[in-house]
């Protein structure tokens, strides 16, 4: 019979070998802090790299453009996976827009897990910052992974303006409506203009003083759609008059997304339920 000591040490050795094998396989990382920001190359500058991919599609103003809007992927990894594979089954989509709140806590780990799903899309995706992405260390993570908060890019005859509307998380210094107006002025050569942000202008967290001017800008520059996430439910309404629709998409948790089709100056959309 083995002595007590030998028995223990053999058990330990077996446990150690098992642990090392598991660690080596799945958990190669030593984590320093929930708030650390340590990225691989494919996790940096995602927006600008994906916009370059969209440009490389060479979509002309007369081509049909089709894009997907989704939002609030925060912690819904199971649903994100289903949504991504559902979109990947289609061949008619040019790119995907994520309307903010990629994460719950703005943690690098969460951003990485979301990117792991969305990078498997056959098409590029572009994300705008949400309020949950801007807390804890999230502002720095979003900047390192996705880039600037306020950006715009053009595809064919459409211009897309991504605006940071997380008023409370940015000390009431955003949305930068002067920047938005300059972008809208610069959009005049395009037939269609889309403004995408996380918090809708009708929410109190948008800043009441901003909501009025935002609506005026939408009307003045004939914006086609004001697109948002944040409230986790589909909503289509006209708070600024008949000309400018405001559309809120559901969270990925609801397993739905919106497909927009742009043909010339005609923009239509379809709500897709998985």
């Amino acid at each position: 019979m083995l002595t007590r000591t030998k028995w223990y040490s053999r058990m330990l050795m077996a446990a150690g070998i098992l642990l090392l094998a598991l660690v080596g396989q799945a958990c190669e990382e030593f984590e320093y802090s929930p708030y650390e920001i340590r990225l691989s190359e494919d996790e940096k500058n995602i927006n600008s790299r994906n916009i370059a991919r969209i440009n490389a599609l060479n979509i002309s103003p007369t081509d049909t453009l089709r894009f997907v809007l989704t939002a609030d992927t925060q912690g819904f990894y199971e649903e994100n996976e289903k949504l991504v594979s559902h979109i990947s089954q289609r061949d008619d989509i040019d790119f995907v827009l994520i309307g903010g709140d990629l994460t719950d806590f703005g943690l690098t780990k969460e951003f990485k897990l979301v990117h792991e799903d969305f990078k498997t899309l056959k098409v590029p995706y572009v994300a705008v910052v949400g309020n949950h992405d801007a807390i804890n260390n999230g502002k720095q993570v979003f900047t390192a992974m996705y880039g600037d908060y306020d950006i715009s890019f053009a595809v064919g005859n459409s211009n897309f303006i991504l605006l940071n509307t997380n008023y409370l998380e940015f000390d009431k210094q955003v949305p930068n409506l002067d920047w938005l107006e300059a972008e809208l002025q610069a959009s005049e050569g395009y037939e269609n203009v889309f403004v995408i942000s996380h918090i809708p202008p009708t929410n109190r967290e948008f800043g009441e003083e901003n909501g009025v001017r935002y609506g005026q800008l939408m009307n003045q520059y004939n914006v086609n759609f004001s697109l948002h996430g944040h409230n986790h439910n589909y909503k289509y309404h006209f708070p600024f008059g008949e000309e400018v629709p405001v559309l809120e998409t559901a969270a990925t948790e609801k397993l739905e997304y919106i497909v927009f089709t742009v043909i010339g100056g005609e923009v239509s959309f379809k709500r897709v339920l998985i």
Partner: protein
Amino acid sequence: MSIRLLVTMAYLLSLPFYTLGQDSTATRKWYAPDAITLQFAGNVGMFAVGPNYSFAEDKVNAELLYGFVPKLDAEEVLHLLTIRGIYKPIRRVELNDKYKVTPLRMNLGLSYYFRDQFSTSWDSSYPKNYYWWTSSLRITGGLGAELHRKVSNSRSIKELTLYGELGTYDLIVTSAVKDPTLTAWDILSFALGVRAGF
């Protein structure tokens, strides 16, 4: 973080060691630690260091660790303090006259982050219960084992302990509870440490 705060923290952390030069067995002051711990990773900093206090024949330990995380891809270095308790339910097992093993150690810690973006309370302009956690405080926990080696030829250090741990933290645990597709390996990470006992 200001240099002044760093110096203050270093001073406070070193206070317990002042009496170590004196007789280490008999009349050690109550605040003099029983050991010093240096840890790599494990969500308490890239490196964390601090005094360790031993109770109930080393069944229970208390530690206060200062940790830092270098910039890496961030804009700033992180500094944090962690207070934690370690519980070892199983007694040490003797391997030979030099080595002993503690088969199980469990730790639970609370970290405080010294940064502006980590607030201890949320601004009153936020809607009620908009965010439920406190961003400057994080709870960490882990399971591991220890290997002890007796040091006989040193006057100050009596024992060296090497330990490994598998750990996680509060926020990512809530994510795993919320989403069944997150596996244990998505939320766990590894830590290594050494402890020099006086």
